[in-house]
């Protein structure tokens, strides 16, 4: 990143807290990062705070959850001081998020076509005809085989991977500056996955979109992203260049890499992570680059 160009996103010391019966639970504990026109991967075990980090950027943490940060900026604009009304203009139009549970996030009683058209027209003031064209174009772009049928269908009529692609189509329709994609391809076969990723790739390369890509798939993140944050217990324990992920040093990251099954090297038992309390206590890593 060159010195003069402002980052798309700057986050400094982000916390997400939930009051629970047994006291305050800190889901995200002092995470700092910046995002340029690039593909930033976030990996880490289940419950480590990846989704909450993404949702916090959009201020989509449900009450009674609390978001705190020293700074959370979108192209230099402070997101924390925006009113709820102002945030509504940010969501979708400037920052879109593909949620982890696509079917849950889609409206069950509205057709797929109407939902994509709505997402598009909210931000583009398009005619009905333009919105329909755009919706069909997006469905085709995410390699939906029979876009005419899917346009008229309801979410429960979609397969798991079709639901994910519909969600991606919907989130990309308004041309966001930043896309947060939370496990966007976990239900896609590897071939369709590659095609969907290349759409996002193109938006980053050609339009300068910033992409935050949350995934459990370490091999995929390593081959697709530019940089990776590795999260554990609400903190960033390590960051590295994506193509160097396999050389990562932190014992936690090593543990994750070692627990992967491999087609070329069959094993009787998969290695399981042995956790160390010290990982939890160490301060969040901040990049030095």
């Amino acid at each position, binding site marked *: 990143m060159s010195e003069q160009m402002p980052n798309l996103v700057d986050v400094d010391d982000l916390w997400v807290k939930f009051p629970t019966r047994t006291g305050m639970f800190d889901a995200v504990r002092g995470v700092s990062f910046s995002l340029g026109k690039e593909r930033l991967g976030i990996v880490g075990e289940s*419950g480590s705070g990846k989704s909450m980090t993404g949702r916090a950027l959009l201020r989509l943490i449900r009450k009674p959850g609390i978001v705190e940060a020293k700074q959370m900026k979108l192209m230099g604009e402070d997101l924390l001081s925006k009113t709820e009304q102002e945030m509504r203009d940010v969501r979708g139009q400037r920052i879109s998020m593909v949620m982890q*549970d696509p*079917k849950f996030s889609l409206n069950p009683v509205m057709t797929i076509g109407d939902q994509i058209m709505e997402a598009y027209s909210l931000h583009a003031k398009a005619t009905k005809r333009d919105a329909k064209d755009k919706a069909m174009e997006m469905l085709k772009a995410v390699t939906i085989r029979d876009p005419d049928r899917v346009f008229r269908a309801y979410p429960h009529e979609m397969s798991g991977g079709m639901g994910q692609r519909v969600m991606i189509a919907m989130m990309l329709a308004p041309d966001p500056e930043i896309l947060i994609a939370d496990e966007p391809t*976990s239900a896609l076969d590897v071939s369709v996955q590659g095609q969907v990723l290349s759409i996002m790739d193109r938006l980053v390369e050609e339009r300068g979109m910033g992409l935050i890509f949350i995934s459990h798939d370490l091999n995929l993140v390593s081959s697709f992203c530019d940089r990776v944050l590795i999260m554990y217990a609400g903190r960033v324990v390590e960051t590295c260049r994506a193509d160097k992920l396999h050389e990562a040093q932190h014992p936690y990251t090593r543990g994750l890499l070692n627990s992967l099954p491999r087609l070329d090297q069959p094993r009787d038992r998969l290695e399981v992570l042995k956790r160390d309390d010290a990982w939890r206590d160490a301060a969040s890593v901040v990049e030095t680059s």
Partner: protein
Amino acid sequence: MSGVEIENLNVWFGDGEDRVDAVIDASLRVESGASFGLVGESGSGKSTILRAITGLVPTWSGKMVVAGEELGDSRSATFFNKVQMVFQDPYASLHPRHSVDQVLSETLHLHGYDDIDKRVPKLLEDVGLGTSFRFRYPHQLSGGQRQRVAIARALAPKPEILLLDEPTSALDVSVQAEILNLLVDLREERKLTYVMVSHDLAVVGHMCEQIAVMQHGKVVEIMSVEEMRAMRPQNEYTKHLLTSSLGYSRPESVR
């Protein structure tokens, strides 16, 4: 004896221009105690086959013999003691207003267990969730934690046959390793039969001896895990799938 036998299965939805032939003339056979993988294109009918077995799709033709029963329109009262399914979509398969405790207690109750208070913590432990999760609601769990609750629920009645639809795609790789090890152990201990859908070929390779590949509603190839590992399939689509599994390669046009 075969655990799951499917012959010339057809499944369709809707009619007129919206008719979808989701499964077309599919046949497969899973021996009792075997582990069978189902992979293939998104939307090719993998989940639909599992849903047809559990009686969740009304419109089908062909023959299905599962856990010794020839299946008709409805399932016998004891069928779900023997056959359980873990659904692809963990959020949708858990009731939003039921706590983890309620979900598991109800299932145990339904299947005639009475020492429920002892079994719930054991089930949670089996899937690697501490008892602190017992009274949480689905929205208070992360994606992977929800999936583990769904697996615990399927294990509750001690089934013989488990139908697993992407059981670990919402899990991180370490929990995935724990769950896969658990599934391997359970299968050995209880002589379980698995039919497992996954888009992760390495996971299927680890778990299954035989793998069916689907595309456009059809089973295009059935191969052994050795053939898959050797990357030597017969079918063109399977070849393409195996090559794609090697990682993302940036298309020329993007670079």
